[in-house]
């Protein structure tokens, strides 16, 4: 069980507002990517987000481009878990492959505001917000293995001996 402060966003938040395309070939350093995260949607985010905060969004979070920086930019702002009613398919995969845990949880977003706190119990597949417990689906064993490794790169590093 862990406790997290939440940042709440709506439906169809696309990769262009999470990480604008104009930066895509000019920003190489993950921290520089983190500094522009969500700037076209919520200019307060990058300056005020804290390690361990969680995003709680509506439908289709991360729709649009295959642009992985839209995950990297949040990861290097300390986001390890993103909860949404549903995800853009490519974004969902990009999260897993970067070791950021995507959680599909219909109904949660409607009862939260930015700054609220929630509790997440991954062992029991539950999210607790106020007095309500939300059940969340378990992930396939393949996906769990990638997340536990910390993403695809650490998995490959094990194969090449870079990681024990």
């Amino acid at each position: 069980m862990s406790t997290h402060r939440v940042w709440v966003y709506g439906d169809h938040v696309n990769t262009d507002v999470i990480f604008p395309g104009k930066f895509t070939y000019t920003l190489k350093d993950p921290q520089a990517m983190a500094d522009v995260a969500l700037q076209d949607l919520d200019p307060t985010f990058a300056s005020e987000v804290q390690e361990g905060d969680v995003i709680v969004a509506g439908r289709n979070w991360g729709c649009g481009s295959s642009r992985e920086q839209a995950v990297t930019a949040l990861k290097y702002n300390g986001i390890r878990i993103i909860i949404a009613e549903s995800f853009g398919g490519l974004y969902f995969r990009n999260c897993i492959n970067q070791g950021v845990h995507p959680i599909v949880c219909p109904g949660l977003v409607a009862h939260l505001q930015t700054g609220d706190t929630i509790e997440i119990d991954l062992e029991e597949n539950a999210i607790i917000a106020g007095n309500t417990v939300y059940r969340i689906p378990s992930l396939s064993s393949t996906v769990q293995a990638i997340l536990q490794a910390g993403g695809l790169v650490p998995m490959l590093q094990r194969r090449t001996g870079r990681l024990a």
Partner: protein
Amino acid sequence: MSGLTFVEKALARAAGVAEAHAGDVLDVTPDLIFSHDNSAAIRRIFLETGFERIARPDRIAITLDHAAPAPTTQHAQNHAEIRAWVREQSIAHFFEVGRGICHQVISEEALILPGEVILGADSHSTHFGWLGAFGMGVGRTEMAALWATGQLWLQVPESMRITLTGQFQPGVTTKDLALYILGRWGADGGQYRALEFTGDAIRTLSLDQRASLPNMMAEFGAMSAYMHPDQAIFDYLASNQQRDYTPLYPDDDAIYSDDHTIDLSSLEPQIALPHNPDNVVTLSEVLGRPVQQAFIGTCTNGRYEDLAAAAEVLRGQHVVVRTIIIPASRDVLLRATETGVLQTLIEAGATINTPGCGPCMGNHLGIPAPEEATISTGNRNFRGRMGTRESDIYLANPAVVAASAITGQITAPQTILNNNANLQGASL
């Protein structure tokens, strides 16, 4: 036992298993993988893994298209890094600045074939469904993993079938169909699903018309967007194809999560309003709204017939707002040169740029000023997409964009075409 969808067959074949069903997780070996200007970033992730050599350089394509020619020194350095990597790793299919947009070039070069699987580091890789292939976009880390091992994990999706009947009215295109689908079922209507387009209407569509539809289904959330391939597709590929193939078709008794039919004859021209591609209304509802820029191009609508449709509207006319035309490939540009389409466009006051993605993702060649509205044949109108947050983007078919360029406001092409016909009648 029920039958199998296209995606179940294609992914089973690519994974080397006898049979696969929606929900299965497979290690898939694609027939081709590709990336573009993002290849330098993918290289850095690849090197981080500890792998030194790309697994199958003969099955890799790289195009320079997203910011080409390079608009800044940083972009030029990015391209230089990619060129050096292509040489070092003996990557088989490299396409320089000016050859065109990845999806168009790979199709023209017949690098992917019906029944095959192609994964690209670009969300519009759903495009290759127009050839009867499984095309899907992947992220940079996934492409690095594909370079390293030649394989990637995929979960077989459920499928949604859309049967197309009837024929378009004049002035209605597959761009309008794509926008209609987005408007009707929303930007997440195809989420986590493979689309299958079927029905007799497909045979009535030109090849350029077909290609726009699976491409645009990336905005529908679809994982892939297969279209039944026929002899016209096989003929198109014949002169360039390097290997044999066997097309795949779904079984008649395959199971679909959703099953829809659309009568093409019932559709009017559509337009997407700012700031989402599913914010769609019929064109007639928003005529007269001012625009300051018109853009014809992109992987969705930068093909020859798109330019020709614009030329038909612009012939003998003059644009009153800046009009940017970017052919999807060198081959498109050549054909438009040979047939006089290009001359018509230039005489009407349009400016022609290097084949590539152009301003579609806000890098160069037509970035709007704040408070300016662009009408575009592209696929996305997200806030900030063209580089400026305070800018509106409308999405429409090429004839609508051309007509709007003449008047400076959203205009139905029929208004211009009728006027052209009257003028010609008067001069006789």
